[in-house]
């Protein structure tokens, strides 16, 4: 009995238990009429909407638009977060100069930048990408900075006795040691990237999954909203799994407990 329970709970499929339960509840709720189709369309209708979108080419077009915005915004935000995080982590002078301002900017809600970005960069792609980059920047910056600042002093002393310069110590000790924290920052940044790409597209876009959401609301078609939500969830999860897999390989040297 106990062995069966362990087998059931140890597999990777165990994580599908809650989504499966919710799906069954959704199916039963829709079939019994407890929940009206205008509020929560049945799963079959959402699947049919997805198939129709795929058939018309709208699905691919929306995915390409959203993913390309996210990819560019993520790369720009991650790059800026990496450069400034490494700079402030390595140099006390740079940290004293830059970090207070960056922390002050962090306390501004990211969506508050939207009007300014639209004013400066227009309603089209640049303002959306900029918003996504802002969302990605902070977790990457903070995690890398924290990772570098938290490097064991004892490892740095090994660099000192081997005559490493500050730049060499950064490259050979601090950055590799900060890698686990950096990977966490990238994953958090990617999660926020998905959040901000949907916000940016909801605020004004003619393509993308956020546009499908908005269109579903404007035209009173909840099945389109649910289809877009499912796609956001699926894409977000897949991208996180891919990043976690790459990151996991990079930090495989960690001596951590895995259960």
């Amino acid at each position, binding site marked *: 009995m106990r062995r069966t329970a362990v087998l059931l709970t140890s597999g990777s499929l165990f994580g599908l238990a809650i989504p499966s339960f919710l799906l069954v509840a959704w199916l039963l709720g829709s079939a019994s009429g407890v929940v009206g189709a205008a509020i929560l369309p049945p799963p079959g209708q959402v699947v049919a909407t997805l198939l129709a979108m795929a058939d018309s080419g709208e699905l691919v077009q929306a995915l390409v638009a959203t993913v390309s915005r996210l990819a560019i915004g993520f790369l720009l935000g991650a790059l800026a977060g990496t450069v400034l995080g490494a700079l402030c982590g390595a140099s006390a002078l740079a940290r004293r100069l830059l970090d207070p301002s960056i922390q002050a900017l962090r306390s501004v809600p990211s969506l508050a930048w939207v009007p300014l970005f639209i004013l400066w960069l227009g309603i089209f792609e640049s303002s959306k990408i900029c918003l996504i980059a802002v969302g990605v920047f902070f977790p990457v910056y903070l995690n890398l900075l924290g990772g570098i600042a938290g490097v064991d002093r004892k*490892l740095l002393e*090994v660099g000192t*006795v081997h005559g490493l310069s500050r730049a*060499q110590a950064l490259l*050979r000790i601090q950055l590799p040691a900060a890698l686990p924290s950096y990977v966490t920052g990238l994953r958090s940044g990617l999660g926020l990237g998905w959040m901000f790409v949907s916000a940016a597209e909801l605020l004004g876009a003619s393509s993308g999954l956020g546009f499908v959401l908005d269109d579903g609301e404007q035209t009173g078609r909840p099945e389109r909203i649910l289809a877009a939500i499912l796609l956001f969830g699926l894409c977000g999860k897949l991208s996180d799994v891919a990043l976690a897999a790459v990151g996991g390989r990079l930090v495989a*040297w960690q001596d951590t407990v895995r259960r």
Partner: protein
Amino acid sequence: MAIALQVAGLRKSYADMPVLGPIDVGLAAGSISVVIGRSGCGKTTLLRCLGGLETPDAGSVTAGGAALRRESVGYVFQEPRLMPWLSVARNVGFGLAAWDPERRDRAVAAALDRIGLPDAGQALPKQLSGGMAQRVALARGLAPEPDLLLLDEPFSALDPFTRAQMQEHLLHLHRAYGTTIVLITHDMDEALVLADRILVMRGGHGVPGHIAADLAPALARPRRPADPLLSNWRASLAGLLSES
């Protein structure tokens, strides 16, 4: 090439509190000097000053009349302090980045061979036992073939059996490289088994660390803690340490 070390008037204080010095001592080229003393007497501070990890307030450390060059010093810490993201081989070659890759590979292979881990090069530090990790740290300290090797209680965290093995390894490596060695310990048997010279330090509780006794145990090698002659020396050493 082993070097003779001359320490003159070395002093160190933290927050205006003198913790070390003055230290005046000369160490012969190729010798093994063991610094022994109670916790807090300034042993580690002395070694950190010799290794360039602390800047002394006053005094000098010279080799053959010239300032000690950092590249001629190897340092082994109390803990292995291996870079967890590097393989064993790359940890051993950590201080050899400027070397020609072929020469570096040869030096790493030779160092791994000497510590008895010739096949562990591709392993990660997390795969090593405590004793193996400390041997790798020793190999890292020795791979650049330093003229002076400083060891800060390198075997203190090991069990007695592994510790005895490591002492054997160190003597074997000393014979192979001929390096001048300064080792810190608070284990009397370790001091007596290894040392050509034992420097007994006293200090702490407001008294700056200083060398209170300088002994040269006239004992044949190899030495075993159970040797009767060692017992006499142990008794003398215990007497000196209890006065600390």
